[in-house]
């Protein structure tokens, strides 16, 4: 593959996917600046691997790269902060159940549960595709989903009232 062709194809892919991928990263790392760094690092890897990625596997490869980078960042940051500084519970939600409340509730989820939430409910992936992206069993995806939903309902009661 000539370099010009590779660059053109990558640029097209980048333009189409950088925002959705950054949103997934954001939900895992909870900081837009960090999410952008994480996404860019992953896309650099995608560029370098470009000639070796089968066209049909490009999306999955990029998603997996972003999620791996995001989880690494979140795990490392958690270690740097120190467990003694991580609150047992999220900060109390604001009264309206608005963005601040959701942010706080998401912060209370472990990084891998946030990744499951991001892939399933923002990237619209099936349980099977989420499992593949994270390299975990489908049963683990279901378990993470269930626990994450329960935590969100508990910490943001307003969310529980939506369907009622």
């Amino acid at each position, binding site marked *: *593959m*000539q*370099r*010009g062709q*590779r*660059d*053109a194809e*990558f*640029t*097209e892919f*980048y*333009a189409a996917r*950088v*925002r959705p991928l*950054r*949103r997934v990263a*954001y*939900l895992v790392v909870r900081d*837009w600046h960090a999410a*952008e760094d994480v996404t*860019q690092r992953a*896309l*650099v*890897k*995608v*560029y*370098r*691997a*470009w*000639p*070796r990625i089968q066209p049909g596997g490009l999306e999955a490869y990029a998603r997996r790269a972003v999620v791996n980078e995001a989880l690494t960042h979140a795990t490392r940051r958690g270690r740097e902060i120190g467990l003694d500084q991580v609150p047992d519970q999220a900060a109390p939600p604001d009264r309206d159940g608005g*963005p601040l409340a*959701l*942010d706080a509730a998401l912060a209370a989820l472990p990084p891998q549960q946030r990744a499951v*939430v*991001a892939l*399933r*409910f*923002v990237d*619209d992936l099936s349980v099977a595709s989420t499992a593949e992206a994270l390299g975990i069993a489908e049963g683990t995806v279901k378990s993470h*989903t269930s626990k994450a*939903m329960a935590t*969100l*309902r508990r910490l943001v009661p307003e*969310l*529980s*009232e*939506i*369907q009622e």
Partner: protein
Amino acid sequence: MSEHDLSTILREHLTDEPPVGVTSGDAIRRGRRQGHRRLALVGGAAAAVLAVAVAVLPGLVDGDEPGRARDAASAPPEGVAIPGALESLAATKVEPYVGALGAPTWDVVDVEGRPVAPDAAEAQFFELGYEPAGSALVQLHVAGYAPEEFDLYSFGSTCADSEQDGMAVSCEQETLADGSTIITSVAPYTDVTNTTKRLITVAQARKHPEKVLWARSFSISTRDGVTAGVSELVRADSADTATWLVPVEVLREIATDADLLNPDAVAHARFPEITGG
């Protein structure tokens, strides 16, 4: 709250995202720079031109795909400075240690990685490979790059990167008084042909020692826009048991030979502009 509700809430939550502050061009530049730094470990083939060659021949450096050798000419180019100088250095400095060099294999390309005649004005990357009697392979390189792109393609963090990525057993880097950067390294490679080789991690090498050649390399990148280098590759179960025949001092003498580092002997085309993003 159903799963559909959660999806709706999360999407609303993300509607006020800031604009993207980076571009595809940034990613492409960074990707090439990382590839280039790794190339310094290849043993001299660290010029900008080789980074282009890597884009054309991705298996040359890393990844899961075997390296694809270009159709290399077996007949030695004649009558041009770099090919003559490389063959002369191989004969006088390498052969005494490794025995008969055997037939040379040449690979000469332009800045886009396209094969060109050795005496062509656009010839920017020269690689000469031998399979001598006493060693698995010996490879010598000379490449040009635009001097103003030195910072972009410097060896700056090659050893730090290789340590972080687990790509080398040892890597020593030094900046000389004239601003040139030199690197001495030991690293594992696979899918080795006369003029290509694929850098792998030390961990990968331990898993498949039967597929690995261990290279001891010396590389130099000058402020005049020239890089040169030489590698000796041997088969061994590990770097600890590898027996290289050519002393490092001799590798250095070859790579720093004035004829090879003559900036007038190679092309110095800049990378074409990266567009898009």
